[in-house]
């Protein structure tokens, strides 16, 4: 087990190196540079900037410096925000993205799992159809439509909740709900499917035959196995919910990290893009590792090698 984890962690290094190299090259291939502006920068200022950021040196030297500094988690100052370090921007932005994503994931699980269980237990009844129809709607409505609709109803119609910004608990409600909707639906569908499969198996019939109360059968025996699909989905879901909140961040003016990646690429903010891409890559790999470990823990048949 420990060996497995260590090996996986060691594999991070070459993977990150490949990602770093590709991103570095792609950024440099994009036309233009960080100092292009509608208002032309005077040549002297351009030269001073190039020197400050080391852009006046050969590409290979820039690449080498970048790798050495990246290994120390130092990406240097942002081009767009010259008085701020990329590291600070990432830490500050990720704190918010993680909070938003964490709440959304929690809502998805707390709402999605019970819904899925109910639908499975009442298969082919009105309740099942209603839950699954709602789930279909949740998956289908994109969050850039759902967000504005929620704002319209709760902020501009009823004046209950702020329409945007990240100030105080009330401001969390609408972005979290918007982000969670699709995941609630997905979790409900996965739970239902998993439960349906488990409920048909022999050991469940045995448990029922032993006269165990239905509550124990469902919650203790069926749910543990029935949730396996949800658990394996949890890794990608956590990644998607934290890294994919770009649109929600935009609609609700949430100061997360997502917007920096997109705007950074548009602005040719080399350091910022490199930092955010590598951070996301490492985060994603760590999550995948955690999921594999959780899987082994939940299902004794899975063996980690």
């Amino acid at each position, binding site marked *: 087990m420990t060996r497995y984890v260590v090996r996986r962690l060691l594999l991070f290094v070459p993977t990150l190196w490949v990602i770093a190299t590709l991103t570095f090259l792609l950024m440099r291939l*994009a*036309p*233009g*540079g960080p100092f*292009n*502006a*509608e*208002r*032309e*920068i*005077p*040549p*002297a*200022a*351009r*030269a*001073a*900037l190039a020197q*400050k950021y080391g852009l006046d040196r050969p590409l290979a030297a820039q690449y080498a410096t970048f790798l050495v500094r990246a290994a120390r988690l130092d990406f240097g*100052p942002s081009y*767009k*925000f*010259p*008085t701020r370090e990329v590291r600070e*921007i990432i830490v*500050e*932005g990720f704190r918010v993205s993680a909070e938003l994503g964490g709440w959304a994931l929690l809502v998805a699980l707390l709402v999605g799992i019970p819904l899925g269980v109910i639908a499975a237990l009442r298969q082919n009844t009105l309740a099942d159809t209603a839950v699954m129809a709602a789930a279909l709607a949740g998956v289908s409505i*994109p969050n*850039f*439509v759902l967000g*504005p609709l929620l*704002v*319209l109803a709760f*902020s*501009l*119609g009823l*004046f209950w909740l*702020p*329409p*945007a*910004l*990240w*100030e105080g608990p009330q401001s969390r409600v609408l972005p979290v709900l918007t982000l969670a909707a699709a995941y609630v639906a997905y979790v409900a569908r996965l739970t239902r499917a998993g439960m349906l499969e488990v409920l048909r198996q022999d050991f469940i019939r045995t448990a029922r035959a032993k006269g165990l109360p239905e509550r124990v059968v469902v919650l203790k025996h069926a749910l543990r196995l029935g949730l396996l699909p949800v658990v394996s989905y949890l890794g990608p879901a956590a990644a998607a919910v934290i890294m994919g909140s770009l*649109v929600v961040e*935009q*609609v*609700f*003016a949430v*100061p*997360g990290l997502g*917007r*920096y990646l997109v705007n950074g690429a*548009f*602005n*040719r903010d080399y350091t910022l893009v490199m930092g955010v891409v590598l951070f996301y890559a490492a985060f994603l790999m760590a999550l995948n590792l955690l999921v594999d470990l959780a899987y082994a823990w939940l299902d004794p048949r899975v063996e980690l090698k």
Partner: protein
Amino acid sequence: MRRSLPWVALALAAVLSGCAAGGDETSPPPLRGPRYFGSVRPPHGDVLRFINGAEPETIDPALVSGEPEGRLARALFEGLATTDPRTLEPRPGQAARWETSADGLRWTFHLRPGLVWSDGPPLTARDFVWSWLRALSPATAARNAGLLHAIAGAEDFNRGVTSDPATVGLTAPDDTTLVVRLAHPVPYLLHLTAYPTLLPVPRHAVKRWGDAWTRPGHLVSNGAFVLARWRQNQSYELTRNPRYRDAARVRLERVVAYSVEDLNTAANLYKAGRVDWNTSGYVPSPFVPRLRADADFRSAPYQAVYFYSMNVKRPPFDDVRVRRALNLAVDREAIARDLLKGTRAPWGRLTPQGYPGYPAPPPLRHDPADARAWLARAGYPGGKGFPRISILFSTSEDHRRIAEAIQAMWTRTLGIPVALRNMEWGSTLQAMTALDYDVARRSWIGDYLDPGTFLEIMRSGDGNNRTGWSDPRYDRLLLAARGERDPARRLRLLGEAEALLLADGPVIPIYHYSTTELVKPYVRGLWPNALDTHPLRDVWIDHAWRPGRRNAGGPAADPEERP
């Protein structure tokens, strides 16, 4: 996905217009009195909350080049002169008075006695000398250092020709006197002193903290406000500076500038009463025709022009007859009327309106017959043999619609093949700078109230020219205007230069920008003006304002007013 967002905005706009009368905080329909787009309940306390736009890149005045940054820099720092919020006339700021020599080349500024920085130390004329030299130093890499080039020796110092600060025409004979020697007369020098690049910065804080001097806790300022709090990608919070020279007249206790870029989000925040002011541009353009009936919407001419430029290094644009033909075939009126729904004025000049005393040349006109004649004279009768040309524009729904309209006008009127070339902003800029285009979408915003701020960009070799166009006659006129001491004659020379530019040059002006703002009725002291400059020290919140004031002494309830 990005493409469908405007449709969401439109749908939202449609629903919003339907529900505007339903909210309990919106006021009655227009027939009975003013109607407001947003909630009109004043905030508690003397606080102004506003949409500042994209996240400020920096608030170091020397480095500031964008509007969100400029708004903060001007609220935190005060220059030698400030601007009157209504007329934009310069008025005394840190300097109480000034005089200029007969030849206009030597300016003497007299600072008010007893000026201090927000942390206590005195602010002297030497602080201005140091700050301006800092902005000029190549190591600072200030984008707008060119604004200081009129000072004798400044350009050489800025370009690194010399590193001796004594060669720059700036001296401080004593604590309250600043002497500025100019290389040529600059009638708008006072306007410049209010510009961010020329604002004083605290030497002691910059020395102590380096690049980090602009952070809360480090930042020391001399203007009406000090920096209290900063939240990344969310807000800058300023509070009143008790040490400001005129602190008693500043009525706002607190200012919150939100970094919100999304136009629909900005409009939602305003409508829900979370902000009191959406600065110009932070109103979704599909809303504008509807908003014009609302009392809290405001639009005024803005010193900026939307135009196309032609790359004269590429045939057939090297032929002035082709350039004329393309210009004459553009129907600006139709674009402004049909595409922009009257939210922008059609414009046939590079310089915008509103320069007192400027003899502006007649605007370019739309004349299809004349356009065809010029094209035939250039050797392409009926468009025969004309190469396929493309219009380059950065990604935006509005740019696309205008490009499509002009494509249709050229194809229909001149019979020439026109393609559209859309690229992301950074790539568009790169293509324009490298002269890798035929026709490109551009715009220009003036820095100060003078036609020179527009005409200078088309001078030969100017970094902003981006057309390859060079005409010695034009350069000579601009140079003559530069050395001219008589303001009226100077403006006449500039007018001649613009006439030449419009007749022979590489620009196709299309429309004149206007500001689009949302301002709550209880916000006072924010005047519309051509520079879209709003000194926050003059702003205050009118707590006595009531939406139902007109009902005072009248009927108890308005039948139109829903509960």
